[in-house]
């Protein structure tokens, strides 16, 4: 009857839908995984499943590299009703509590179908049913699946309250009656259940028992259970409870369906022979190895139960949104990927009797698109489709071009562009200046009064950190990190969808240095992440530096030596690879390798070795619409080394060549000279492959340029073991699986041994913790150093700069006046994590101001990313130059982090990160109008 009601509404929805095409995905269809498939969705259903070349006119196409497509997740247990006064009240339908018009948080987690459960707080709390999350105007979404009566056998449901029965209508002599309810014990539960069955079978017995109205209703429901018109489901965790559930289900003539099942693995055989279905909610999946080196039997419960023939679904206890995370844990514990995926889709759907969990032609299109393995840690679907309609879409964030026309653009290099346009295509800056052609379909922000500055960089915070761990058997989310060590970068705890990330982005922070907690001389790695951009590209660098915390330590040789030894060790570690490489090359020269040799090449990307790199030709565009009629000039640049730098000649067809000299200045390459008798300066960041920046003609900014290296050097292979998967697993996998991971990490050296000639040098053992030092020792990634003892700080700074020549940002404000001359001399930056104004000897004193005046680059950091601009504004009111304030938020952190080619400026080729202000930057009344992060407009919540 109810489904009939939904039909017209569903039809209306279906007719309005555009077809969707998911092209070239790895498809899990509910049973098996297969690569290179395409799926076409039409009118709410899967219309065609084809190969990677499938085409469909007029369809919205989702083509994401390395994408996975799986059925919408099926959550087999989602509590929707709290405990009522009655111990036995199967008439309650949990599906009634579903509000199809409320925002559906489950869709964020990729759950499109769930079992609305009446809870666990009463013996028979009600009946559950299937809800399918369609669009709200499709009307509810209660599926016509068989509801099932829940019977809770765990102690949480015992000792129900007394019922007070008022007389209707109330009279003076009527006293409220008290009714006591069962059960108090498991025995009482069994008795109460058997009594209900007896009443349902035997009307005369029910008559004699003088039941009240609600009790008669309950008996009627149990009659439906006996007639198989309603299902039966038990909650049972311990061996005793599960044994009782099997027995009671048999008495009622049903195959046991059990949720919970913490100790079910001990009864795998019994459950298997009873034809049981199990919704496994036991939380301690990854208990790992026990003290005796054995796998904890509970950890691989899913695998054991499935092997015994039990139908298994996986569901989290209480934490509904963590279904994927939990599934990933089960995979780690040895349940095969396809089995795990089945247990949260088709397998779960079969157990709850839902029409869901399959990708088949003609089936309802509930689909999830992932940009990586769905079971990898921290993964969320980027597209969620329910009944053929896109409910969540995080894939297309930066696709359509964005053009900002503004009164002023401050690209971050000290120049000012009046009435300029910034064009962002595919998340990157594609043009800055006047008269830029805006491609069709671009989103245009026309803001003649606005000032555009680069997206801000918060140099240190724990914004967006979501630390999932287990406490007392339940998943707990923590919003802070302790010291992590180098094996696990903080980015693995980053969740770009957290509210505080959104508000950070709304506050103009588009990049963020994630810091681990302090307290150790190597507290952990720093990660560079994006705020406000598409979730799939949130992590810019897993390891962007190292945090070294000496706060509270006194000066001693041992302290300094401790860090020195670590760095020395790392240096030796890398040298061992270098040596191995040389040995290998020498060996291979003597014994030419056969074809199909597995490469063990390990190279490190190095700082641009200018002389080698600039030896090549550089080709690209200068975008100067005001100077040249056609807007941009294609040109080729050639550098020749000279005694203090380079000579440079830039040629463009049919134009006067530019000739001049080039030198490095503050991490950037600056070319100065003349073109057609006019002075010309090109200044920009240089990487191995790109040189991009701003071009100035006769002292006026004329445009931007982007040149690419013509002949690319052999592609630098990443440090990667031959077995690519294990590296991923090692990085993303749980830290608790430590022993297993180390075992895998040691594999690469052995992998290729089969065909290897004898005596071929073997690769040294890889060590994740050491790998983090690579960037630091190459002078590419900074060490953020904190020390509050002056002598210790001096010794550490000198050691790091003089002995290892690493980038350093010093974080302690109180020592700043004393240390500034040394920092300046050594070239150490200051990362300000404290308030911009402090009290010192009774007077206001701003370390930021002080450092900026002394010519030390400053990086601004604040715990609350959303307040970063306020902090800078505050410093400006104290007398800081607003240009310097802008540098502290953009260019300086980008330089110190060695990401100047990507962030911290508005130049061609960099990330499309913009903050659009309604007035002078850092003036007290200035507000943020818009924030663009990698070309995506960040939604700004209006504050009350």
């Amino acid at each position: 009857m109810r489904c009939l009601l939904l039909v017209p509404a569903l039809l209306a929805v279906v007719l309005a839908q555009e077809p969707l095409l998911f092209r070239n995905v790895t498809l899990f269809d509910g049973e098996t995984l297969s690569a290179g498939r395409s799926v076409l969705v039409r009118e709410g259903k899967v219309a065609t499943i084809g190969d990677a070349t499938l085409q469909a006119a007029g369809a919205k196409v989702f083509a994401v590299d390395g994408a996975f497509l799986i059925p919408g997740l099926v959550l087999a247990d989602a509590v929707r009703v709290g405990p009522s006064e009655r111990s036995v009240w199967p008439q309650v339908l949990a599906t009634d509590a579903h509000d199809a018009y409320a925002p559906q948080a489950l869709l964020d987690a990729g759950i499109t179908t769930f079992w609305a459960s009446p809870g666990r707080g009463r013996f028979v709390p009600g009946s559950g049913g299937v809800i399918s999350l369609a669009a709200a105007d499709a009307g509810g979404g209660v599926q016509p699946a068989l509801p099932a009566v829940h019977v809770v056998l765990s102690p949480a449901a015992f000792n129900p309250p007394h019922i007070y029965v008022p007389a209707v209508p109330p009279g003076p002599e009527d006293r409220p009656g008290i009714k006591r309810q069962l059960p108090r014990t498991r025995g009482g539960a069994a008795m109460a259940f058997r009594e209900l069955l007896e009443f349902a079978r035997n009307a005369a017995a029910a008559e004699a028992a003088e039941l009240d109205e609600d009790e008669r209703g309950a008996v009627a429901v149990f009659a439906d259970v006996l007639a198989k018109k309603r299902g039966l489901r038990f909650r049972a965790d311990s061996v005793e409870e599960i044994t009782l559930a099997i027995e009671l289900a048999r008495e009622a003539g049903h195959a046991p369906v059990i949720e919970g099942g913490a100790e079910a693995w001990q009864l795998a055989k019994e459950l298997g022979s009873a034809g049981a279905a199990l919704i496994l909610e036991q939380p301690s999946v990854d208990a790992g190895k026990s003290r005796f080196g054995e796998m904890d039997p509970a950890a691989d419960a899913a695998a054991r139960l499935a092997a015994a023939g039990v139908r298994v679904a996986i569901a989290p206890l209480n934490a509904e949104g963590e279904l994927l995370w939990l599934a990933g844990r089960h995979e780690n514990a040895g349940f095969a990927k396809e089995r795990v995926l089945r247990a949260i889709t088709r397998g779960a759907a079969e157990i709850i009797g839902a029409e869901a969990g399959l990708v088949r032609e003609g089936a309802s299109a509930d689909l999830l698109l992932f940009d990586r393995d769905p079971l990898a840690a921290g993964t969320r679907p980027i597209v969620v489709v329910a009944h053929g309609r896109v409910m969540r879409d995080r894939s297309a964030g930066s696709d359509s071009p964005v053009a900002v026309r503004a009164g002023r653009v401050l690209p971050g290099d000290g120049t000012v562009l009046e009435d300029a346009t910034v064009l962002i295509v595919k998340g990157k800056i594609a043009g800055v200046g006047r008269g830029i052609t805006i491609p069709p379909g671009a989103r245009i922000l026309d803001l003649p009064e606005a000032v555009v500055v680069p997206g801000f960089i918060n140099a240190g915070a724990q914004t967006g950190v979501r630390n999932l761990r287990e406490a007392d058997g339940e998943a707990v989310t923590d919003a802070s990190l302790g010291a992590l060590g180098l094996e696990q970068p903080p980015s693995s705890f980053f969740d770009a969808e957290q509210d505080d990330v959104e508000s950070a982005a709304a506050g103009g922070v588009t990049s963020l240095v994630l810091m681990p907690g302090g307290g150790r001389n190597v507290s952990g790695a720093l990660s560079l992440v994006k705020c406000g951009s598409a979730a799939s590209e949130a992590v810019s660098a897993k390891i962007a530096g190292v945090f070294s915390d000496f706060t509270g330590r006194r000066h001693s040789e041992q302290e300094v030596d401790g860090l020195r030894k670590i760095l020395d060790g790392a240096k030796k570690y890398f040298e061992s690879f270098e040596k191995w490489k040389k040995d290998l090359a020498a060996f291979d020269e003597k014994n030419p390798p056969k074809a199909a040799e597995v490469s063990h090449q390990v190279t490190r990307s190095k700082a641009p070795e200018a002389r080698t790199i600039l030896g090549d030709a550089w080709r690209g565009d200068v975008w100067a619409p005001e100077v040249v009629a056609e807007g941009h000039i294609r040109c080729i640049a050639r550098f020749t080394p000279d005694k203090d730098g380079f000579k440079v000649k830039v040629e463009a067809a049919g134009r006067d060549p530019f000739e001049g000299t080039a030198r490095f200045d503050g991490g950037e390459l600056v070319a100065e000279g003349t073109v057609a008798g006019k002075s010309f300066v090109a200044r920009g960041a240089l990487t191995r492959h790109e040189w991009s920046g701003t071009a100035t003609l006769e002292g006026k900014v004329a445009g931007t340029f982007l040149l690419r290296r013509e002949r690319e050097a052999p592609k630098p292979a990443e440090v990667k073991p031959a077995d690519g998967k294990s590296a991923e697993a090692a990085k993303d996998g749980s830290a608790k699986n430590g022993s297993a991971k180390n075992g895998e990490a040691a594999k690469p050296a052995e992998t290729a041994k089969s065909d290897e000639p004898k005596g071929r040098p073997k690769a040294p053992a890889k060590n994740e913790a050491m790998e983090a030092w690579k960037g630091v020792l190459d002078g590419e990634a900074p060490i953020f150093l904190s020390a509050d003892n002056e002598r210790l700080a001096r010794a550490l700074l000198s050691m790091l700069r003089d002995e290892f020549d690493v980038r350093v940002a010093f974080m302690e404000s109180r020592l700043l006046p004393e240390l500034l001359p040394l920092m300046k001399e050594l070239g150490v930056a200051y990362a300000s994590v404290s308030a911009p104004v402090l009290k010192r000897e009774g007077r206001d004193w701003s370390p930021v101001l002080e450092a900026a005046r002394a010519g030390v680059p400053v990086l601004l950091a604040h715990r609350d990313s959303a307040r970063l601009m306020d902090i800078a504004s505050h410093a400006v009111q104290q007398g800081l130059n607003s240009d310097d304030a802008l540098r502290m938020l953009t260019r300086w952190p980008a330089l110190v982090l060695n990401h100047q080619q990507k962030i911290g400026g508005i130049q061609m080729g960099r990330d499309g990160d913009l903050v659009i202000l309604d007035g002078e930057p850092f003036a007290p009344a200035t507000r943020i109008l818009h924030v663009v992060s990698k070309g995506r407009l960040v939604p700004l919540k209006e504050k009350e």
Partner: protein
Amino acid sequence: MLHWKLLALVVISATLAPAQALLLRGGRVIPVIGPELESADVLIRDGKIEAVGKDLASDGEMRVLDVRGRVVMPAFVIPHTSEGMDRPNEMVPVTPFLSVLDSLDSSRPFFEDCLRDGNYTIAVMPGEMTIIGGTGTIVKPRGLAVEEMLITGNAGMKLSLMPMSGNRAGHLAKLRAALDDAKRHMEDQQAKHAGASDVFDMDAFQVEQRRREMVRMLRGELPAWIACATAADVEQALRLEADYKLDVRLVLGNDTWRAFARLKGRKLPVILAGEFQPREDDPETGKEVVRNLPQLLKEAGVRFAVTTAPGSLARRYMWYQAASLVRCGLSREEALAAVTTNAAEAIGLGARKGALDKGRDGDVLVLTDDPLSGLAWVETGIIGGRVVYERAKDPRLSEIFGAGR
């Protein structure tokens, strides 16, 4: 002593004798159905409207009221209120056997205000703090005894889907239990006494007194008025309609607007009982948004009636409500219909009330100004062709404003 008796006789005869025919001469007539007429007449005879038009002939028998410069329109219809009783709900949530008839209090100031404000048809229903609240009734605001006021006895059963203890599933379980119980009783009695009558007869089938109104509702003889607070409640109301074949009337609160699209084309009587433009925090963006409910209903193609808001200074006037609807984007005609014809239809009196048309009840207002001007007062109120209110003689007003008023 004698003159007291005489006076009493005069009063009684005035009440009992058929009313004199009444001709309203020369006013601007808003019939609500059909175009407005300048300087037209309305003739009421035997309690019913006999004619609306220009230059109607008068005879010596008629009482003629000169209403030139005044506006003549049908009296307003309040399609849903819980005023006029001592309290809106019982303490027990399932009380289908209660009737508003037993708790109406004709002496409450609400009815006096209705007389003054031109609300001459009032559907008094049990309140929302209930599951099944009992039956409501439709009255006019004149008369000392309830029987005197009565237009329709038991006009409908009041159901509420607003969860009383925050437990929606439990609320609905209780509601269904009560419906199922009545259904079972109805079927049992019918089967037991099948020979007693060919048609369904409550007495012959010995249907229990306490369950009779529920049985009438399940048989479609008594409408079910379902109060909904949220969009999900509307969904449940539609399910109840389908599952139990109820004759449903919806009483909609502020948060129901998300379900308006679901009412499209269903022709269910709808009463907008909440605010017209409630504010809410959008759950997706967190922004405060004003929702224009009348406009949204109009866009969904739903005809609806509005009602008064108890305790509100301005919103207790139906003309203020109509004017607010115009501000919300409805046309003048739609706004006036929402307080007259639509409201009458919603309570099953579509043929009798809400418009100036031949054959309808002679419930007419003479206003000092256009009803949407915001400055209008009821100068003369007429129920069933009888003048029941004259502002000039309003004792309460003269008490407040002095004799000069």
